[in-house]
């Protein structure tokens, strides 16, 4: 990897030669590693104010009997959607990055609950933060890993020297069919990351790796309000296989072991899955505890693993190594290796902490929830 400016480098035909030492592209490597070192210059989270306890869902559908997969989930207010929530997370990321928004060259929003079927969320967000018009903008979709996909694309854009800053967001207002198991967990929230040069970053990104197969564990057809899921819903062949494969391959390629990481964050559709996958990989519960938010806010889908990362950054120390692994049904996992820098200490408190949003909590009952989520037809 060279630090030379892109303009000073020779233009290559695009194919690396296996035997040569001076290859421009690391195409033999499974790692997704940018040409220029990049990192997170600013980050921001958002969680809506309202909470629906799982026992309230159980009261309606099971007479309060049986176990529940978490404590409570976050519910957006009537005037919130993925655009408004992304705007707030993006403003928090900009507060921490302390850069002018017109230096951003791309705004990318990953979600499975974009407000419009046709019309980008990213343009609304870019306009609201003052980043238009000299930008690229797009919406990303890949179930719960749309947010980390946008991050990988941002790493590529900045790491290729095409842009100094790119804003990537993962945000959702997930819906579960009334009475379905998903109704206990499908929640609202997410995070925004401003990706930029490593030397300006509060956490550098060493590399990432993606593991993807065609696995029909969960889907929603066009025009349908609620998702469907397969019988073997997010079990062994889906959640566990993809996350462990992504994490193991990344760690093997980087020659790291779980003990090298101060913190690890995994996609969190419920409390048990991320705890179990951490144990399978050899992580201790102390390593995953700060990033495990699902019990308090629910599964925020495209925002799930990355809002866990914001919570880790809220308390991490310079030098801490962090493993982040997302999971998206359909299916795939993106794994990232990050290293916290000393810039974290001066930037952390420039915006609201993830914990500030989690503590801002108003409990609602199922009837209010049904109104807020527009489950009543008039």
């Amino acid at each position, binding site marked *: 990897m060279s630090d030379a400016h892109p303009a000073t480098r020779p233009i290559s035909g695009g194919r690396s030669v296996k035997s040569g030492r001076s290859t421009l592209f690391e195409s033999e490597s499974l790692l997704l590693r940018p040409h220029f070192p990049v990192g997170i210059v600013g980050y921001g989270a958002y969680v809506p104010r309202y909470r629906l306890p799982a026992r309230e869902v159980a009261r309606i559908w099971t007479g309060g009997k049986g176990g529940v997969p978490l404590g409570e989930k976050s519910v957006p207010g009537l*005037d919130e959607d993925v655009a*408004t929530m992304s705007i707030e997370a993006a403003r928090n990321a900009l507060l921490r990055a302390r850069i002018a928004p017109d230096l951003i060259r791309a705004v990318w929003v990953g979600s499975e609950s974009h407000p419009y079927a046709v019309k980008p969320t990213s343009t609304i967000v870019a306009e609201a933060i003052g980043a238009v018009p000299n930008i690229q903008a797009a919406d990303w979709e890949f179930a719960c890993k749309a947010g980390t996909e946008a991050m990988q694309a941002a790493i590529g854009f900045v790491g290729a020297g095409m842009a100094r800053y790119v804003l990537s967001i993962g945000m959702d207002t997930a819906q579960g069919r009334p009475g379905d198991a998903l109704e206990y967990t499908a929640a609202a929230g997410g995070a925004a990351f401003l990706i930029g040069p490593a030397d300006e970053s509060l956490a550098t990104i060493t590399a990432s790796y993606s593991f993807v197969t065609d696995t029909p564990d969960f889907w929603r057809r066009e025009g349908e309000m609620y998702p469907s899921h397969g019988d073997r819903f997010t079990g062994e062949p889906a959640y566990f296989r993809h996350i462990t494969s992504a994490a193991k391959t990344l760690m093997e390629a980087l020659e790291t072991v779980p003990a090298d990481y101060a913190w690890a964050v995994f996609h969190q559709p419920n409390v048990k899955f991320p705890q179990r996958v951490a144990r399978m990989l050899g992580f201790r519960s102390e390593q995953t505890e700060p990033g495990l938010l699902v019990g308090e806010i629910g599964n925020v889908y495209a925002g799930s693993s990355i809002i866990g990362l914001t919570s880790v950054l809220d308390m991490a120390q310079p030098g801490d190594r962090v493993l982040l692994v997302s999971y998206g049904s359909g299916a795939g996992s993106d794994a990232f290796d990050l290293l916290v820098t000393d810039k974290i200490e001066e930037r952390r408190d420039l915006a609201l902490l993830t914990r500030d949003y989690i503590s*801002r909590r108003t409990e609602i009952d199922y009837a209010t929830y049904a109104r807020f989520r527009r489950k009543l037809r008039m």
Partner: protein
Amino acid sequence: MELSRHWRLQDQRYRLVGEVCDTCGVKIFPPRDICPECSKPAQELYTFSGRGEVYSFSTVYNAPAGYEEYAPYTVALVKLEEGPVLTAQLTDLGDQEPEIGMPVEMVTRKLRTEGDQGMIVYGYKFRPALAAAV
């Protein structure tokens, strides 16, 4: 036409962009190109911090067309810390009662939706200042 009117208002609606008077320095919202204090031209754009306090408020039970699904809701006169007073809906009150002097901050939210097929109109509202709430 309605669509283009929304588009021109977006800077002030999405992120409180107003003006500052070149002559006397007064901050102006909404932008009107003439300073209300000294009547000189004011065209320098100024983005407001979004922080302010509730000056007065009232609760709307019979909402006008397009806003029915949000009723009841609270509309307030908010005095921005830079001086101007503007009318806006309060949001995220939860179980908090609004009160005069309550510190609030600007958020960008859905203002209304033009039916199932129309556009979604976004703009500023104010919520209880979060730093003070936690």
